[in-house]
């Protein structure tokens, strides 16, 4: 990141997406945005607002409703010199493009022994909390982290959003960039005007603590911090680590924190079974078993299709559920 004194803007997370796209497009003419309604309309969530006017229809391309075509086309563009940033309108709309993403984007480099590369960033709003069912709310990061060859990023702050997006766009390999839409406009943060990057694969310690480690990402970071603060009132000193990049995962940060605390809670809104909490737990078991002082707790969504409306409040991990887990793990 730049060390020079910089001007900042006070941005929401979705504005930081836009600002990140804009500054990377200014830096590099090969960066091209494409997707459904991303151009003249500015996108359903306004993430690309103003880009069409600033860069024109050749670089901000309105596509038909054709996810497979959008991702496949992006792979072809990436293979031949461009840096496409396709938008999937909701992450739940990505499945028609799954074949292109998994069978081709993720494997182009290994399959061609490094002769072809796929520098592409698939952006998609993801996660729950907006009162919509199924495809419009689910968290499916684990299906992308499971695919070797894809990097997976989930920012939780406006500052990180711009920096991680820039790093993803400059990365030589395909990145799935999942934007937690619950916090698109939840809060603002000072974000430098000039371009900068936040390195992929590095977790951030959001709260230092000695008693136990809580690992989370995306929209779950804030309720986790609230839960940690609440537990702190009773003298429980939780460390909160925002993983930010889920693949490659910063296992060093996980292990280091766990060796210090010996207790862990993992929080994610995705369903429990097959979710990344299992992977994180396994990593801890392998790398730091002898430091472990309590069972590792998972606070997650449930193993059901993402529910509508009233049930959503039960589905999403919130601060009290997280706090319960922190207290139980601390006391175990």
């Amino acid at each position, binding site marked *: 990141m730049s060390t020079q004194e910089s001007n900042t803007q006070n941005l929401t997370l979705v504005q930081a997406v836009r600002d990140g796209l804009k500054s990377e497009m200014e830096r590099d003419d090969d960066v091209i945005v494409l997707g*459904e*309604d991303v*151009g*003249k*309309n500015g996108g*359903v969530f306004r993430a690309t607002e103003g880009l069409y006017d600033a860069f024109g229809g050749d670089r901000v391309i*309105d*596509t*038909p*409703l*054709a*996810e*497979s*075509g959008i991702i496949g086309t992006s792979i072809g563009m990436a293979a031949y010199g461009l840096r496409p940033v396709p938008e999937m*309108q909701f992450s*739940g*709309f990505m*499945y*028609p493009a799954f074949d292109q993403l998994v069978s081709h984007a993720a494997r182009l480099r290994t399959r061609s022994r490094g002769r072809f590369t796929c520098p592409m960033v698939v952006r998609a709003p993801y996660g729950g909390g*907006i*009162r*919509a*069912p*199924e*495809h*419009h709310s689910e968290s499916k990061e684990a299906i992308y982290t499971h695919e070797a060859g894809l990097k997976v990023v989930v920012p939780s702050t406006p500052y990180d959003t711009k920096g991680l997006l820039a790093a993803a766009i400059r990365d030589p390999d395909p990145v799935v960039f999942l934007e937690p839409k619950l916090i698109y406009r939840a809060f603002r943060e000072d974000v430098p005007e000039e371009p900068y990057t936040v390195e992929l694969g590095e977790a951030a310690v959001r709260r230092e603590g000695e008693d136990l480690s809580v690992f989370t990402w995306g929209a779950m970071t804030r309720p986790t911090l609230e839960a940690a603060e609440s537990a702190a009132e009773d003298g429980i000193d939780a460390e909160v680590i925002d993983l930010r990049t889920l693949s490659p995962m910063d296992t060093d940060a996980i292990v280091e924190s766990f060796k210090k605390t010996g207790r862990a*809670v993992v929080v994610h809104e995705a369903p*429990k079974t097959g979710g990344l*909490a299992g992977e994180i737990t396994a990593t801890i078991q392998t790398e730091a078993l002898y430091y472990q002082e309590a*069972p*590792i*707790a*998972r*606070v*997650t*969504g*449930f*193993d*059901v*299709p993402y*529910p*509508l*409306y*009233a*049930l959503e409040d*039960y*589905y999403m*991990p919130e601060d*009290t*559920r997280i706090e*319960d*887990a922190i207290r*139980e*793990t601390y006391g175990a």
Partner: protein
Amino acid sequence: MTDYTLETEAGRRESLRRMLTIREFDTKAGQYFADGEIPGFVHLYIGEEAVAVGTCAALDPDDLISSTHRGHGHCIAKGLDTELMMAELFGKEDGYCNGKGGSMHIADVESGMLGANGIVGAGPPLATGAALSIDYQDRDQVALAFLGDGAVAQGQVHEAINLASTWDLPAIFLVENNRYGEATPVEKQHNLSQLSDTAQAYDIPGLTVDGMDVTAVAEAVKEARKRARAGDGPTLIEAETYRYRGHYEGDEQNYRTDEELEQWQERDAIDSFKRRLIDRGELTEDDFEEMQAAIEEAIADAIEYAQESEFPAPEEAYDDMFSESVPEIEAFAERIRTDGGSNGGDA
């Protein structure tokens, strides 16, 4: 059984009644969405009523349909109950899907409604499969897929029509061309100016009809149904129509002008059909007002029904996960019942 065909006087009045019901239902759905009582997203069918009603009036009651994210009109045209629909929109347990599906996932086996669909272009393959079942089981039915102009660009729509054509299945593909795929005009999404020309790629009949004329839609569907039942395969019908509301409620609609909307509203399908019935002496203004008043009351009842229904209990999220109960799921549900869902994880 209700007379519901454009070919009889009673059937024409029923068709008008259903068009009016759709408009009233969606007008109220829009209001209660704006008030925050209806969650998620709603995509209203106002303006396109003649397409759903013309289509379903030409189908047999036993025929099957698949729908879209903009499905309320298809449901009402196919005869679904507005109280159960409204309860579903409100996310209540008395709804068609026990409040677990919402606006975009209403489905009903008895009505032959394979489901509204939150994924653009996902319905046609289901209709192709339903048509294959019909064919295999030698039943006197057809399966019709409603899809939007935007869906025509989806790969799976091509796959669905190609399969149905190749196998001469009793299917109909009804493209509702409302001029916009979400916020992008149809001409920016397709190289063809007439979407019905896609039929040429499958060597099946393709025709474009005035989707603001309920009779024109019904005639085209009737012909397509006859062809499908004769074993001659599917037909692709493009109905030219217009949605008066945004893609979704809350859509800024910066992609179109008020003048364009007004031009289409001048050709309003309900107004013109009503005038036609009055001209033919099949309806009076008094009849119309009576009909309208009864519909307003029915939809008000539907709202009340929805408001009074309960939200599903948390443990119901586990109901119907599989055909048989799974011990682990039962344990989860029991746990939520006993501790109020305080923890979804291991702790």
